[in-house]
């Protein structure tokens, strides 16, 4: 006899005899689907005991687990909401900053443009002034060169004339003329009456 058969027999010993047929093939249930009533009752009690034990001893920890889980999920949801709000705030700030940057860019561009125009205008004025000054200087220079050339020419003419005068005078003075000149001076000085005075008296 197998162990199963032995167990079936032991259980059968405890159970009422009418609900089992014991033959040479072992214990055979009276109904092919439902077990006997006492077995259902016994198993129901056992199940209830198990459920109670689970409820009694595992319930709090399960409850706590779910409670913690709920809190965690809630926290994560709150954090998500907060992160979303922060992200939206950041996005808003970035959008604002972008707006500011754009405004600032426009302002800088505007200032740079104004400054460039100012520099350009100033440069034009300066260039115009310099051009006028250069023109005036060139005109003065030309006038000066013309004047200098004229002066040099006059000086040169005067030099040549002076040299020519000396040469002509020296060449034209012979002994008789020298004597005549000396006699003229003597005559003029002799004709002067009374003491002459001061520098540069000329006969």
């Amino acid at each position, binding site marked *: 006899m197998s162990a199963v058969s032995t167990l079936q027999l032991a259980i059968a010993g405890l159970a009422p005899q009418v609900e089992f047929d014991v033959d040479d093939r072992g214990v055979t249930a009276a109904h092919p689907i439902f077990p006997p009533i006492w077995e259902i009752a016994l198993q129901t009690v056992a199940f209830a005991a198990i459920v109670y034990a689970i409820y009694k001893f595992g319930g709090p920890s399960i409850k706590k687990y779910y409670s913690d889980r709920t809190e965690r999920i809630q926290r994560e949801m709150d954090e998500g909401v907060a992160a979303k709000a922060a992200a939206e705030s950041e996005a808003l700030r970035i959008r604002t900053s972008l707006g500011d940057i754009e405004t600032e860019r426009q302002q800088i561009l505007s200032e740079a443009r104004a400054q460039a125009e100012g520099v350009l205008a100033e440069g034009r004025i300066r260039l115009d002034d310099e051009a006028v000054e250069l023109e005036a200087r060139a005109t003065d220079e030309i006038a000066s060169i013309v004047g200098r050339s004229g002066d040099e020419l006059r000086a040169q003419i*005067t030099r040549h*004339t*002076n040299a020519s*005068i*000396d040469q002509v*005078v*020296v060449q034209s*003075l012979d*002994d008789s*003329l*020298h*004597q005549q*000149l*000396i*006699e*003229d*001076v*003597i*005559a*003029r*000085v*002799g004709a*002067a*009456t*009374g*003491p*002459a*005075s*001061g*520098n*540069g*008296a*000329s*006969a």
Partner: protein
Amino acid sequence: MSATTDPRIDGYARALFEVARADGTLDEVEDELFRFARSYESSEALRTTLSDEDIPAAKRQAIVEDLLGETATPTTVQLLSMVIGSGRASDLVAIADALVQRASAAKQLEVAQVRSAVELTPDQQDRLRAAIANATGKQVNLKIVVDPSVLGGLVATVGDIVIDGSVRATVEQLKARL
């Protein structure tokens, strides 16, 4: 020609004056020294040579003697040699002028320096002397300097008075006008 205030020059002039007067050749010495001074004044080569201390004094004195030779009195040559030999060549003109001043003053005369392009005849000198005396009221000791730069006529200087009858003055006026 102005009177000097340098005591050394006056000292030399007085010494030369006394020697020439004692020798009885004051007029000649005075005239020769004056002429030599004018030559010295106008010749840079002569000035450089006679005042060059690197040339021995004896050699410079020999140059003076060679230059004057027999055209000057021995007293003039000796006095000039003495001045050159004592290293006073640079003061030669001032010494000669001081001597002329002193000699003229001794004769109660004013020095009249006359620059002329050509030499004046003795007659012209006499008449010029008289003419200057008439014009200035001073008796003058005429000192003639032949100066070609005058071109023609003459320039007479008596103290502060200048009588300019030179062609040079006329030419200069003409040049200034040009």
